[in-house]
């Protein structure tokens, strides 16, 4: 076998280098994040990278970050979830109503929120797999159903979170590390662990890469997709719980106002996960979420006009996706 070139990817130095391969989109987005931080430092001043501002940016990234951890898995499996924004709203009003200012109700409220998340995820997953319906349409549909329920039952802020619960939104450990950031990191770690170390994760990448190959290899593709949808809806529910802690009440419009559906997809894609599935991962998404938060913060500090801000965000998202497309195209040619 002298003819086949030696493989040295086990060489520690080399493997470290390949881990930070610029053509690897996941590492690339972390570098871009770093570059934007430096840019902010230059444009805004040293305050931009102060501990206070850094924590501030991270806390701002928490709600989007949590739901993007769910969206990543759904997209990795080749599906999509547009229902998360309304699900977040539903969860805030439900859990805030259940709590109704009484700390004794907190566990029940969390249980209700998670149960709603699991339920919606199951419905989405079943319709996508067993119903063979397009995920875009299915989740748009379930989202609209929830929107209808919200507007018929809740006109304004409802319920209230007890002070004890609001610690989740504002509490800090040791006076500096926000609990909310810990929450995001915990969700991230779970998602990372699931994708990296579990059979579910392995099969999720396989189904997203090629449903046919996965199925012929004995992977139960439907279960994998349903699992991803349940996880995604659960992350939306956690985001909802967090927002209740933050707002002190449930709000029927907090989800759509935060544009969590499209923003979470944008964060996933900016983070280097292929929209068609099978390639990418949660570390990239975390960087994508932080990147969007840092840019927001920078624009605010520079007092960029609101419309221009939106335009710039759009340009950045398109640029990111286009650069990935070009890169993977070039890679294809290399292989050929």
């Amino acid at each position, binding site marked *: *076998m002298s*003819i*086949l*070139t*030696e*493989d040295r*990817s*086990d060489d520690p130095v080399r*493997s470290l280098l390949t881990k930070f391969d610029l053509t690897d989109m996941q590492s690339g987005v972390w570098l871009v994040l770093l570059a934007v931080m430096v840019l902010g430092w230059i444009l805004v001043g040293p305050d931009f990278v102060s501990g206070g501002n850094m924590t501030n940016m991270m806390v701002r990234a928490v709600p989007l970050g949590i739901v993007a951890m769910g969206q990543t898995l759904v997209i990795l499996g080749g599906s999509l979830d547009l229902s998360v924004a309304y699900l977040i709203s539903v969860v805030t009003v439900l859990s805030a109503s259940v709590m109704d200012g009484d700390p004794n109700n907190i566990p029940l409220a969390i249980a209700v929120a998670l149960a709603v998340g699991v339920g919606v995820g199951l419905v989405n997953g079943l319709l996508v797999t067993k119903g063979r319906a397009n995920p875009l349409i299915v989740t748009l549909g379930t989202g609209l159903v929830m929107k209808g329920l919200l507007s018929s039952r809740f006109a304004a802020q409802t319920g209230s979170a007890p002070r004890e619960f609001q610690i989740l939104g504002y509490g800090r450990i040791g006076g500096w590390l926000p609990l909310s950031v810990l929450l995001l990191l915990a969700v991230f770690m779970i998602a990372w662990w699931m994708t990296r*170390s*579990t*059979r*579910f*994760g*392995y*099969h999720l*990448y*396989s189904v997203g*890469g*090629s449903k046919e*190959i*996965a199925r*012929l*290899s*004995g*992977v139960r593709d439907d279960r994998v997709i349903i699992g991803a949808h349940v996880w995604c809806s659960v992350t939306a529910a956690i985001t909802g719980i967090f927002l209740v802690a933050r707002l002190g009440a449930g709000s029927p419009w907090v989800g759509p106002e935060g544009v969590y559906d499209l923003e979470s997809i944008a964060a996933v894609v900016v983070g280097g996960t292929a929209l068609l599935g*099978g*390639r990418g991962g949660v570390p990239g998404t975390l960087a994508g979420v932080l990147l969007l938060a840092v840019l927001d913060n920078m624009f605010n500090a520079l007092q960029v006009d609101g419309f221009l801000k939106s335009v710039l965000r759009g340009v950045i998202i398109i640029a990111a996706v286009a650069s990935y497309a070009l890169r993977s195209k070039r*890679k294809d040619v290399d*292989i*050929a």
Partner: protein
Amino acid sequence: MNGTASEAQVDPEPTTLLRLEGISKSFRDVEVLRDIDLDCPPGEVHAIVGENGAGKSTLVKIIAGAHQPDRGSLTLDGEHLSFHHPRQAQAAGVSIIYQEFNLLTDRTVAQNIFLGREPTKGPLIESRKLEEDTVALLEQLNVSGSISPRAKISDLSVAKQQIVEIAKALSFESRILIMDEPTASLAPPEVEALFDIVEQLRQRGMLIFYVSHRLHEIFTLADRVTVLKDGDQVTTTGIDSLTPDSIVRLMVGRELSDYFPEGADQDQIGDVRLRVHGGSNHLVSDIDLEVRAGEIVGLAGLEGSGRTEVAEAIFGVEPFEAGTLELDGESVSIRRPRQAIDHRIGFVTEDRKSQGLILPLSVLSNSMLPLYTLSRRERREREEVHEVPEGSSLTMQLADRVDLRAASLDQEVRFLSGGNQQKVVFAKWLASDSSILLFDEPTRGIDVGAKAGIHDLMRGLANRGAAVLMISSELPEVIGMSDRIVVMSHGRVAGELPSGASEADIMLLATGQSHGRGGDVLHPVGDEEGSSTETGGDEPTTVSDDTEDDYREHGSEGVSR
């Protein structure tokens, strides 16, 4: 899982690993395999050869459980088998490696080999064991130094990807391995490496089915050869009793029973309309080709020899990167299909349903598609050529000309039969007044009656002065329709033959067994010969060095992908 053991009978001959008895298979009333019998011992490399469409793929897919036979039985180690899913065949020890690999390109070697069977502890993957098991498999193939279990498939060469497929087969403890054109995209040194592995597997007692067009490889590797022709088992015999020539003779040879329209007379053939000189891109090299007004040039060759790629290059789908393209003596550059259409080139593609027609649109919309992309002036100019009489329409006139049978011009083309669909594709290029026409497999999937109609149409176009290039895998069609035949092999023009060449002439050029230029027929073999169905290898001649060298000249510079 392991098939059903209906009869617990002990095989009288322990030397038989796989037995096929009377295997037959039809697809939509077309019999593609008839009464195939095989008896294969372990440790044999069994080559399966035949022309395009001879039934090779169907046969190996039946063995691999991807198709179910209509009649006949498979016996593995004395146990009767009936597979309903490739997964069952895999579990029973039958693996197949298709030309298109079944690998997930974004996952690692280890993840691919054990996909769906990962070693787990509860919900967790035991990634260390996964890698160790993979290394152990790769060690068995002596490639653990060159393929890392953590390497991503997309980072591996095609040769290495193939080894990963072989390792996957080993992981199932397969006793039978089927390889479909395994060397099609390998460089010569990689082919040698593959041969080493095949030899190793053979020594370990694996039965290997080797489907290949490359006769030279078969003579290097195979113990026995089964020749298929039109779904019949022509012969199964030891390699020693065959020569490349005798195999080719067995593969071809049938009567030209179909009706074909008369070829062009010399005075009907006009000036050169299309000339390619030294045309090359990453798929084909050094193409020299001429098509004159009024003539039909047949472009023959095996699947993957670059025929379609030549047509696509001319039409600007994958343009030539080097060489010249001349239309009516003027050098032109065609980088996009649109430019080809501007030059009045029409392309009837191989895959009607995905490239030729927009299925949910009507006959009218489809047939007007290229015409309506043109500028208004250009369009009017081309419309006027048709001289549509008052009270009629261009589509009506065209439908009449191609003898289209449709309920109405508003009928969606997906409801039409294959033959009528193809006529709509023809109408499309007639509408835009194309006079250089490229036909890729114009009668594929069309029933016999409609075929003759398509043939008449093509000849009619040539008689009216069009220059026609026709690609076909059906040798009788190539011979029956062409005024000249250009044969391709490994992305190059292997030679040119005059009309009336025999199937054997074409196959010898296509398999790289002979050279031919300007009608230089090296192996004049009659059509009637070599069609004996009993045994092959009437004259056991040895492979001449000559033939081997011929192969190398063609093979070493073949397309790499």
